[in-house]
């Protein structure tokens, strides 16, 4: 595309989403650290009266980091990567520009309403799908706007072949659209009867069916929120930052189509030993194990992209972030299938091993990758050199320590709890009362809260670094930057 060498990309929308990524990252992680500390020190439940209990705050943490931080990160990178891999500038289409701005502001509105309603306890109560029906409708509009942006940009593209990242962004869009619509089907009670609160609705599905739809959604929201779009990012940013070509096209094909087909079956592993039919539980278990293949396919493809260039790992902290992200992705996608094996699940389910698993995935893989992407994008967005390399290095080690404390304490806590629940004395009676299995966890809850705090401090260092880059970094011409991100010592 030599004739387009002078193409000026327009990053207005990308910058807006970088801002919201950092904002919601801080909000979500501050609440996360607080509720982690509440489990170790229950007095912390009373800081905000009715609104400050663990139970009321947990949905704010999950929604804040999933739909606030992660979605913002996905969109920040989309409005950056999309233009570049399709070889077309947002500035060429005032229509797409308007869609992008509307997308951002409507999304911010939804997020504000989400925070307010969740704090008030207005909730549909299904995990990661708590928002009530009027907000669900707004979410759908936001999602359609993103779809318009994707397919609009594709419509005016110059590069005919869709790059691997584009496959994953498209899949994210389609997957979440399907899952969200089906899982949130509900009937507003006020519209049907004329009585009571207009915000209230009742689920279209009952009992076991509701559970089935919910975990088909819940599990795959992880797939299409925490896996698919993050792979989109790493397929763009790792080759770009390292200057290395993706190791294998065939491996990326296998991983993509394999992931698409296999992931959706695995939701049943959340319902093992529940009242859903046995064959579904077994399918969930088996497909979870099969899922190792496409997951490791992507991760190995990324690691092998660095073949012969491992020296970059010591020189460039962004490579460090991305390589560790791939590694945590491998750990997490091995751990998940292990927990899905029925006999392991019998111990692991309902325990702290599950949040432990989630967090080595999200802290190590999702957040590391999104931060690396923002570090890479910042000099190109703001035409400034990255403020401090040594701060990036320090942040990396602080947060890695935080993650290790988090997941190792939760592994021990979860297995301890699972074993104590089933322990019997010599006469076959239960050996422990429930409260025994709670008090024993205190040291692990404390370690977890410390791990979370270290990670949070690292995130503040990240936010500060980006802010200083923007405010006082050394000027560079972002449009001429090639691979390695410029950063001052």
């Amino acid at each position: 595309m030599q004739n387009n060498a002078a193409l000026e990309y327009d990053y207005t929308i990308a910058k807006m989403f970088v801002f919201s990524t950092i904002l919601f990252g801080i909000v979500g992680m501050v609440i996360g650290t607080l509720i982690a500390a509440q489990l170790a020190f229950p007095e912390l439940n009373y800081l905000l009266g009715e609104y400050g209990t663990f139970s009321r705050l947990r949905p704010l943490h999950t929604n804040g980091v999933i739909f606030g931080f992660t979605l913002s990160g996905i969109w920040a990178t989309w409005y950056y990567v999309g233009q570049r891999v399709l070889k077309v500038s947002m500035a060429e289409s005032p229509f797409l520009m308007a869609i992008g701005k509307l997308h951002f502001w409507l999304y911010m509105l939804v997020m504000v309403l989400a925070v307010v309603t969740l704090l008030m306890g207005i909730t549909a109560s299904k995990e990661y799908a708590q928002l009530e029906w009027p907000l669900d409708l707004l979410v759908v509009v936001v999602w359609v706007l993103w779809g318009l942006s994707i397919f609009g940009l594709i419509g005016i593209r110059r590069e005919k072949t869709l790059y691997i990242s584009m496959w994953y962004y498209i899949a994210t869009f389609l997957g979440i659209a399907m899952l969200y619509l089906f899982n949130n089907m509900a009937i507003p009670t006020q519209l049907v009867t004329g009585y009571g609160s207009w915000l209230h609705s009742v689920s279209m599905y009952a009992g076991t069916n509701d559970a089935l739809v919910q975990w088909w959604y819940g599990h795959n929201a992880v797939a299409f929120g925490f896996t698919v779009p993050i792979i989109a990012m790493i397929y763009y940013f790792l080759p770009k930052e390292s200057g290395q070509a993706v190791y294998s096209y065939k491996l990326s094909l296998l991983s993509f189509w394999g992931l698409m087909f296999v992931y959706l079956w695995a939701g049943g592993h959340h319902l093992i030993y529940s009242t859903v039919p046995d064959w579904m539980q077994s399918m969930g278990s088996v497909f979870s194990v099969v899922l190792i293949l496409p997951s490791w396919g992507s991760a190995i493809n990324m690691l092998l992209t660095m073949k012969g260039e491992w020296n970059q790992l010591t020189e460039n902290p962004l490579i460090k972030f991305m390589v560790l992200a791939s590694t945590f992705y491998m750990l997490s996608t091995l751990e998940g299938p292990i927990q899905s094996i029925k006999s392991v699940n019998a111990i692991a389910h309902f325990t702290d091993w599950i949040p432990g698993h989630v967090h080595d995935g999200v802290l190590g893989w999702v957040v590391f990758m999104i931060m690396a992407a923002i570090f890479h994008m910042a000099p190109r967005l703001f035409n400034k050199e990255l403020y401090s390399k040594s701060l990036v290095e320090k942040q990396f080690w602080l947060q890695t320590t935080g993650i290790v404390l988090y997941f190792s304490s939760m592994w021990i806590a979860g297995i301890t709890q699972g074993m104590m629940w089933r322990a019997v004395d010599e006469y076959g009676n239960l050996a422990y009362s429930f409260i025994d299995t709670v008090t024993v966890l205190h040291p692990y809850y404390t370690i977890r809260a410390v791990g979370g705090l270290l990670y949070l401090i690292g995130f503040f260092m990240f936010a500060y670094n980006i802010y200083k880059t923007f405010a006082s970094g050394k000027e560079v011409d972002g449009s001429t930057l090639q691979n390695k991100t410029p950063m001052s010592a």
Partner: protein
Amino acid sequence: MFHWLEERPFFFAVGVFVVIAFAGLIEILPNFAQASRPIEGLKPYSVLEIAGKEVYKKDNCIACHSQLIRPFKSETDRYGMYSLSGEYAYDRPFLWGSKRTGPDLHRVGNYRTTDWHENHMWEPTSVVPNSIMPAYKHMFSNIADIETAYAEALTVKNVFNVPYDQDINGDGNVDVALGSWEDARAQALKEAEAIAADMKNQDVKDAVARGEIPEIVAIIAYMNRLK
């Protein structure tokens, strides 16, 4: 074939959609009619119990409590009979939870009483030393939304044929009456009075006497029903 797809975004998107929708079609749809059948004699929730379920949702009890007893001896010893699919037929949404920071509650009505819950929600450590559960004192002053609970009951009755105002067990009497809003409110208040009579908090008793039902009364009605 893949190169061909990668140059044609429309067909690419259709391909992805077919591949991801496949599992849902096979796993979810066929089971729907079967799994939603209630066990014999299952009664729908009364309006007061629905209001209590809403308090349970509002304060997000599922963050720490499950309502799903797995078929293991260690669980049936601790919580009672393992859970059956048909017991959840009127649960919209399902409230199984995914984490047991606290114990399972699916049959809590079998072994806890109104006064135990009153003490526990006011100050958990007063009945469970070392408990890390927060106190929910605001439930004693917040008033439950009975009208919305009635709206929910009427909705599931009309839309999903949940058997309100019907004789379910064949004894010739209506098992769970719903009736008009006025009937339902009077009935909810009657049930609330029975619960308040077993409680000691004077503010709660006064509120019920005034015709208002505090959240604590509703959630106790709901938890007593979980058997």
